Structure formats: structure tokens, C-alpha cells
């Protein structure tokens, strides 16, 4: 084959060493955009989040003056953002969990991790670049989705109730919702890095996000109540509330802090194992 007889020219225009970080970020962006699972997960997230919010807002608007509206009215007055974001993001967040996990586990299950680590043998820079790229992607997609949901919801219910970003706690809860989604994806990624198997990691994350909290809340007593309040997503979701509710153990920012601590600890463990384990 004639291709074998080509002579190899050293690749010209080698980037200077300080460009390494830019290169790593570019590489992680190429990785994440070049597989279908990314697109599908994000589409699922956006469609579910906006779709369910749309349905809820239409139903509320329709039934405003009829059946059992009172409860919803009260909550919309006291804590509008929990209603607005609860419907769509409660389910849509699972797509981000899945994406966060497979961003890292797919490298292991496919063997691509070996190519990646040959290129970045120190390993941690690769993980850091992955975190940054995924966080930025989540920021963009999360911010767009959250604001679309907010303005869609409030404009549909505009005839009945006025909710604006200027009201106390609403802007914080809205931006907090975006932050929550970012950290949630990273939380899932950290678990993925620990477990390294897609199915196991997704089951673990989903279990922690939607199965464990209601189970713990069934246990009576204040200790169980505190445990429940410190669970990662239970604490994290407080940031999306307009104001602290009587039953909440933590304030919105405290809750978000607890969620961040969970994520950082899991990432630290994940990073240690990444460096120590054979790839």
C-alpha cells in the first residue's frame, strides 16, 4: 500500500506549552459534543423540563377559579419558584444525572479512557477539564431552560398572579435553580468516576436523588428529619425555593452548601481513585 511509504513530516505549528489547558478544554468539548448520548440527554432534559412546566401552567391557568385552586394559590404566593421549577425539573433533572454519569463512565466502558490517559498521563488535568466543560455546558443549557420555563410559566398565569424576578427571593431561587442543575450534573459525574460502570452509577445517582429522600422522610423523629434535610439533593433543592419553609432544616444557601460539600467530597474520592487505579 503506497500510503506506507509516505514520509512523516513533524507536525508544524506546535502550540506552546502554556496552551495545554486550552487544548485539554477543547479536547473535552470535542469528546462531549461528538457522541449522541450528549445530545439526546440534553434534548430529553429540555423537552421534559419545558413540557411538564407547560402542562402544569396550562392546567393551573385553566382551573384557576374551579377545583381545589386554593392550595396552589397559596403556594404560588408563598413560594412561587418551587411550583414553577418543581414540575419540569423534578423529572428533567434525571436526564442531567444520566449525562453526568455517562460523560465519565462511557470512557471506561468503551475503553476510550486508555486513549485519553495516554494523552494526559497525569490524569487529573483531564478530570478537571471534563468538569469545567461539562459545567459550562450545563450552565448554558440550564440557564436557557430555567429562564424559558420561568417566563413561560409566569406569562401563562399572568392574568391571575404576577410573579417577577424583582420579588424577594425569586431571582435568587431562579439563579439558584441553575446552580443546582450544574452541581447535580457534577454530583452524578463524581459518582460515575467512583463506580466506573454506567448502569451501576446511574442506579446509584437516581437512587440518591429520587428514591432515598422519600424513604428517609417516612422515618418519624427529628433525627430522621435532619438526616433527610442533609441528603444531597434535598439540601440542594432548597436554593430553588423563594423562601425557607418551616419544615426545612437548612436555609437555601446552607442547603446548597451542603450539596456542594457532598459533590466535592465525592469528587475528591473520585480523583484519588483516578490517579491510583490502573486504567
Amino acid at each position: 500500500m503506497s500510503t506506507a511509504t509516505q514520509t512523516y513530516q513533524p507536525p508544524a505549528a506546535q502550540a506552546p506549552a502554556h496552551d495545554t489547558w486550552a487544548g485539554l478544554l477543547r479536547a473535552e468539548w470535542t469528546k462531549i459534543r461528538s457522541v449522541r448520548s450528549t445530545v439526546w440527554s440534553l434534548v430529553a432534559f429540555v423537552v421534559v423540563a419545558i413540557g411538564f412546566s407547560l402542562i402544569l401552567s396550562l392546567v393551573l391557568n385553566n382551573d384557576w377559579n374551579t377545583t381545589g385552586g386554593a392550595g396552589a394559590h397559596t403556594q404560588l404566593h408563598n413560594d412561587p419558584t418551587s411550583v414553577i421549577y418543581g414540575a419540569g425539573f423534578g423529572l428533567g433533572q434525571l436526564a442531567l444525572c444520566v449525562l453526568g454519569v455517562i460523560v465519565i463512565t462511557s470512557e471506561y466502558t468503551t475503553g476510550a479512557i486508555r486513549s485519553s490517559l495516554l494523552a494526559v498521563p497525569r490524569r487529573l488535568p483531564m478530570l478537571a477539564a471534563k468538569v469545567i466543560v461539562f459545567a459550562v455546558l450545563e450552565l448554558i443549557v440550564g440557564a436557557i431552560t430555567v429562564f424559558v420555563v420561568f417566563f413561560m410559566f409566569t406569562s401563562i398565569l399572568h392574568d391571575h398572579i404576577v410573579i417577577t424576578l424583582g420579588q424577594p427571593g425569586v431571582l435568587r431561587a431562579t439563579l439558584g435553580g441553575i446552580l443546582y442543575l450544574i452541581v447535580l450534573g457534577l454530583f452524578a459525574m463524581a459518582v460515575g468516576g467512583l463506580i466506573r460502570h454506567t448502569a451501576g452509577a446511574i442506579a446509584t445517582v437516581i437512587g440518591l436523588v429520587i428514591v432515598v429522600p422519600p424513604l428517609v422522610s417516612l422515618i418519624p423523629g427529628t433525627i430522621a428529619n435532619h438526616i433527610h434535610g442533609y441528603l444531597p439533593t434535598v439540601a440542594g433543592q432548597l436554593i430553588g425555593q423563594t423562601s425557607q419553609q418551616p419544615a426545612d432544616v437548612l436555609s437555601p444557601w446552607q442547603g446548597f452548601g451542603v450539596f456542594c460539600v457532598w459533590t466535592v467530597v465525592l469528587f475528591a474520592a473520585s480523583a484519588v481513585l483516578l490517579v491510583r487505579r490502573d486504567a
Partner: protein
Amino acid sequence: MPWLRSTDALAPVHRSADFAAPGLNLLALLRVCGHSGGVNVPPGLIEVRELTKRFNDKVAVNRLSFNVEPGRVTGFLGPNGAGKSTTMRLICGLDRASGGSATIGGTAYQDLKRPLLTVGALLEARALHPGRSAHNHLLYLAQTQGLPARRADEVVDLVGLHEVRNKRVGGFSLGMTQRLGIAAAMLGNPKVLLLDEPGNGLDPEGIRWVRTFVRQLASEGRTVFISSHLMSEMSVTADHLIVIGRGQLIADCATGEFIQRSSERSVLVRTTDPARLRDLITNEGGEVKDDDGPDDTATAGDVPAFVVTGLPAPRIGELAASAQIVLHELTPQLPSLEEAFMELTAGSVEYGDSTHGPGVQATPAERSMS
């Protein structure tokens, strides 16, 4: 046996003499843009010292020491499970060594700033995401090294995958995947190539392509370290061989030497009067054993055959002539690389470390154990 080097006799000094090989111009160029660590270490020299890897109780690589020199193709041979792949993974830092070291041009792989510019490795064909296109696989690897995107196009053309570069690699045959792996290894135009069974899944044409390819790379002054279980392929591809068994060094020598010396020269003799000739040969210091070859040769023409070691064929002929013994056959046996290999590794595969294969002295590995 000089070609069976004991592990403690590896002197980096005499290695650099071999380095004055053709293709030095390119090497000099590579040296300028590379990241060579040590002052006197040739940039493409792989040095493995006392390398050890334990998986739980099992020792996969046991105090392995050898050098891989630039400017030639070095074959890495060993039976399945001998530790070849593990050794290569240790050199590239994918596995963490339990002991010892491996360096490239004096620098550990993990300490290379942009490793793909120094070392290109094909360790496992399926080290890629099946949902990603060939182009994107190469592109992201290029980006990690700060290489321009067109480098991905150049190497994909190099291995003949231009037409399928935008196809998802999940649909590639094993042969195409191997080519993509070689393209990835060539991304940084490295001076060191590590290829683990590159012929796997390739058709004969592909195997020939790999052979031509690696021979050319070596002639350009690069270091080519290539593992294979195809001994016949190595005999035409490799200039030098490193043979391991059970994670220990068995031989480190030129390919020709390996074939020549690993088997004691033997001669197949067929005569009508075996008893007398056997006596004559034994008196001359030769050793005789019955032919254990295929049945059809042993019984051909109802004349029994036996194998002589320790005496050359002409001397046996003279002995027969002087005693007026009729010879039907007198054939020097040329061992193939395959046979040489089997003979050398027999001890490490079938028996314990203390058992020697036929005609082989204590291996360096064994000696280093005692």
C-alpha cells in the same frame, strides 16, 4: 551464551554505540523538538529496570529489565499471559508499577509534557468510543497535545481511512480499528512507537502494510517496540527480540541470533544400520535420540531415523563413510523462530521456573532469582 543476557549486565553505555545508525538526521531533528529527559540518554531509548507488577497475589511482571533501542524494530515475544501487554501498559503509565521503573529517553511517561509527541502507542484496538467518528477521535487526541486539527486529517489519510473518517467507529472492522489506532499513535509524529499486537484482525495485506510501515519508521531512526504472538511475522519484521515468559526476561538478542542459537543444531539421520552408527556417533561425543517427528518421516521406507546433536552433518557423513554404513538421509535441522521460541519458553509455560527447556541453560530470569 552471550545473547542470553543476565539482567544485571545491562549497561546503558554500550547501548549508545548502536545509536549511530542511519536516519540520524531525522532523529536529530526530533531531538530538538522533543522532550528528552536525561543528558546522555538517546531521546528514543526505552529503559525498563526491575519492572514489577503484582495483581493481588499474581505476579504479572517480575523484575523485568531491558532496553529498546532507536533505529530498529524490536519484537516483544512471549506466550499468552507472559506479561507483554502489562509491560507495555506499565511503560505508558496506564498501570501503576508495583516496583521498578520504565523511562523513555530518561523520562517517565507520566512526566512527559505532551506525551503523544514523544510516544505513540497502540495498546488495545478498542480504546475508543464506538459512537464517535474516526475524525473526532483523532481530533480530541490532537487537541490534548496542542496539535492543529489538520494533523488528525493527515494521520487518517496516512492509514488509508480517509473515506470513512466521518463514520462512527463502532461500525469499523477490527482491521480498520487497528489502522485507526496506528493513526492515533502517529498523531504527534513520535520518535517512539509501542504497538501491542498491531497485526490483530488484519488481513495478509494489512499485515504486510504494518510490516512495511514499522520497518520504515525504524529506518527513520525511530524506536519501534512491537509485541506479537506471531513468531513467523516477527522473524521478518523485527531486528531484535525481547522474549519473556511468566513476566520474566528469557532472551534479549538479535532476531537472527535467536533463531540460530536457541536450538542446538541437530541433524536428522536415516540409515540401514542405526545401531553401529549410533555407537560411532556416541564415541565421537555426539548425542543420539530417536526422532520424535511426525510418523511419516520416522517410518519412511521402513528405515528408522534418529536425531543427532553435538556433531555437524559432515562429520556424521564421514563417520558413516569410514565404516561403510549406508545413509538414506542426512539433514541438518534448521529451527524456525517458532520452534526456537517454543523451546525457550517451554520452561516458563509448562513447568516451574527451575525446569529448563531442552537445550537451554538457566535463563537470566532464573539466574536472577537464585
